[in-house]
């Protein structure tokens, strides 16, 4: 066993949130060590292939999924430098102010401990840092904020064809807001619209963690360490402060890393699992679990993909993977008939022949010669868009420990997820509306996918009340405030909005605040 030299901050996970924390703390002069369970990837390790892209996805330790619905954990999670965000699609809309006050405004869901105005500045900062493209004026639903630093991405045949359907139904479309460069920016090249984002963008056009915050962190002196699998947080005798973490290196050797503060940014399920596995006599139900809320309020956006065949050549293999146009007409939460919650459309997704979201999978019922015929036709004429729906926080959707263990003897995670009537209702509305839009756009045939799950949130939610939440507004555990949580696991509500922009904004706000009040918030605890 090795016991290393103490650092100011040890970070668990070198993905989206971990990289932001690493950059901000290192730039504030803190000694930072970030431990990543997966390999130490570079941009040049990202190969354009849907098959090779699967190396970036989660494989182990296994997460047992129970309940009626799947959160598609292995698809939605990633490992290695960059985490899931290394192959994410960069669709970055903002949460709306009402998303953060659902309980107060509608008597549903939960309230965040912060309001939109307190987050807005960090959204603006992050979009400037990474170089977002979009059109703030045409995006008529967009909450207040600085205009995008870059003009929108161009719209190709695929987007134009589908936009006709929206127009015919009196619906609006805007360029999609993305963390992808429409022009060269800070030495990074503009996107070339080849639609390999799902395999990871190696040029730096898409703002994955390796492009902005990870290099900033290392330039400021942070050490990023791969093949280091963190198993639990270590505590002092009184159980009032964390003293570091335990981890296993690539050879299976156990280490202890002492630190003044611990940031857990290992994505939603692992965040809860590490805290549950850190239970001791002072924190019998898991670290940070005096409220009993640890692991609860797991959320995943119900998503429906609409497919259609068009006479025109859609060239659906071009563009960016995440879509060309955007619509939030069905966002108003109380206006969606029979179901509460918001919805949005990402329109004209770049689609390749194979993989889970590929052309062949869009008609999973076909095989043999029919499948050949379909893939051939679809490669030129398929239209694709995805409807993303809100999932309300429900404490029975949860992350717990399994009675099975990983190779180091630590219990694995098991998740229970059942979509409620709201989520299911919104999903059905989206499916129906999507087919209408495609027909109005001139599709010769249109169909939709079964329910899918996008983005995974909750489990370590923030809140004002320590009786009902796990962290405070700066993502510090109420019970042990020198443990800080990163990522969408701290979100108390899901909205229908993609989670990564908000995860960056929240991490930046917390890191800047904690760095500024370091002695008071961390040292003098």
């Amino acid at each position, binding site marked *: 066993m090795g016991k290393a030299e103490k650092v100011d901050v040890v970070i668990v996970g070198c993905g989206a949130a971990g990289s932001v924390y690493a950059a901000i703390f290192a730039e504030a002069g803190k000694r930072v060590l970030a431990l990543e369970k*997966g390999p130490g990837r570079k941009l*040049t390790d*990202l*190969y*354009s*292939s*849907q*098959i*090779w892209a*699967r*190396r970036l*996805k*989660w*494989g*182990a330790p*296994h*997460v*047992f*999924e129970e309940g009626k619905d*799947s959160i*598609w*954990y*292995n*698809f939605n999670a990633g*490992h290695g430098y960059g985490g899931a965000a290394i192959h994410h699609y960069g669709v970055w809309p903002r949460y709306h102010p009402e998303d953060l006050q659902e309980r107060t405004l509608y008597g549903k869901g939960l309230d965040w401990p912060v309001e939109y105005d307190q987050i807005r500045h960090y959204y603006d900062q992050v979009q400037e840092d990474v170089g977002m493209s979009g059109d703030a004026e045409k995006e008529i639903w967009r909450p207040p904020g600085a205009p995008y630093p870059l003009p929108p991405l161009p719209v190709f045949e695929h987007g134009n064809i589908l936009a006709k359907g929206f127009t015919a139904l009196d619906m609006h479309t805007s360029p999609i807001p993305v963390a992808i460069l429409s022009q060269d920016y800070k030495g990074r090249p503009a996107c070339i619209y*080849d*639609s*390999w984002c799902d395999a990871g*963008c*190696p*040029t730096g056009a898409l703002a994955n963690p390796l492009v902005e915050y990870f290099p900033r962190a290392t330039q400021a002196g942070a050490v990023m360490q791969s093949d280091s699998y963190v198993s639990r947080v270590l505590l002092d005798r009184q159980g009032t402060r964390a003293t570091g973490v335990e981890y296993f290196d690539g050879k299976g050797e156990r280490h202890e890393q002492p630190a003044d503060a611990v940031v857990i940014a290992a994505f939603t399920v692992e965040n809860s699992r590490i805290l549950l596995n850190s239970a001791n006599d002072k924190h019998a139900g898991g670290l940070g679990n005096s409220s009993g809320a640890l692991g609860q309020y797991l959320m995943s956006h119900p998503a429906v993909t609409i497919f259609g065949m068009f006479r025109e050549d859609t060239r659906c*293999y071009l563009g960016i993977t995440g879509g060309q146009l955007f619509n939030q007409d069905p966002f108003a939460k109380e206006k969606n008939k029979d179901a509460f919650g918001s919805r949005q459309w990402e329109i004209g997704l770049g689609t390749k*022949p*194979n*993989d*889970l979201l*590929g052309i*062949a*999978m869009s008609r*999973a*019922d076909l*095989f*043999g*010669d029919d*499948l*050949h015929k379909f*893939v*051939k036709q679809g*490669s*030129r004429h398929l239209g694709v868009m995805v409807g993303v729906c809100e999932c309300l926080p429900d404490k029975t959707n949860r992350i717990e420990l399994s009675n099975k263990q990983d190779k180091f003897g630590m219990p694995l995670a098991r998740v229970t997820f059942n979509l409620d009537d709201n989520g299911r209702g919104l999903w059905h509305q989206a499916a129906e509306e999507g087919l209408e839009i495609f027909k109005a756009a001139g599709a010769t045939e249109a169909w939709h996918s079964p329910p899918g799950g996008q983005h995974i949130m909750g489990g370590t939610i923030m809140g004002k009340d320590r009786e009902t939440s796990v962290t405070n507004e700066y993502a510090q555990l109420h019970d042990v405030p020198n443990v800080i949580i990163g990522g969408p696991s701290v979100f108390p509500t899901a909205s229908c909005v993609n989670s990564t922009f908000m995860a960056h904004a929240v991490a930046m706000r917390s890191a800047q605040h904690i760095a500024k009040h370091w002695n008071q918030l961390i040292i003098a605890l």
Partner: protein
Amino acid sequence: MTLSRRNFIKQSGLALTFTVAGKTMLLTPRQARAGNIPFAVLTPEEVSALETICDHLLPGARENGVAHFVDQQLTVDPNDSLLFIKYFNVEPPHVDFYKSALKEINLLSESIYGKGITAIDKAEAEKLIETLRDGKAADWNGPPSPLAYHILRNDAVDVVYGTMEGFEALDIPYLAHITPPRTW
């Protein structure tokens, strides 16, 4: 454009490392098949069953080396796996899934037609696949049959269409930023 063999493998997007008698070779699954490269985890019967069912699911899968692709990938760490099964809630090691599914498919064929999967004709295979896909297989004791259908079907799609050759057959540009390296 003419490609050298080495470049072709590099650009095909699906070159795998096979070790035979201590010697490491870089081959596409199609070449591994043509060169009779031995299998690591699947038995000859399982290989035949896998090739047959996949070729019915998407003609061309056999020739494109689906069995070598699957067999080789079943030997790697689950985090590094390139198999479609990785997305599903199936606890590794995935070799158990394949072995059990292939065994049950063969039994199903025997129970319906009185002969194994490799002996049935195209029309018989179509009916059998529909039974699998629709979860209607009687006395099925393997992983859920619709899941087995999806996994095997997508393995076939991967080797037929997931490569540069596949894109070329579809007449769409591949447009790679970085093609996969020779070894991995």
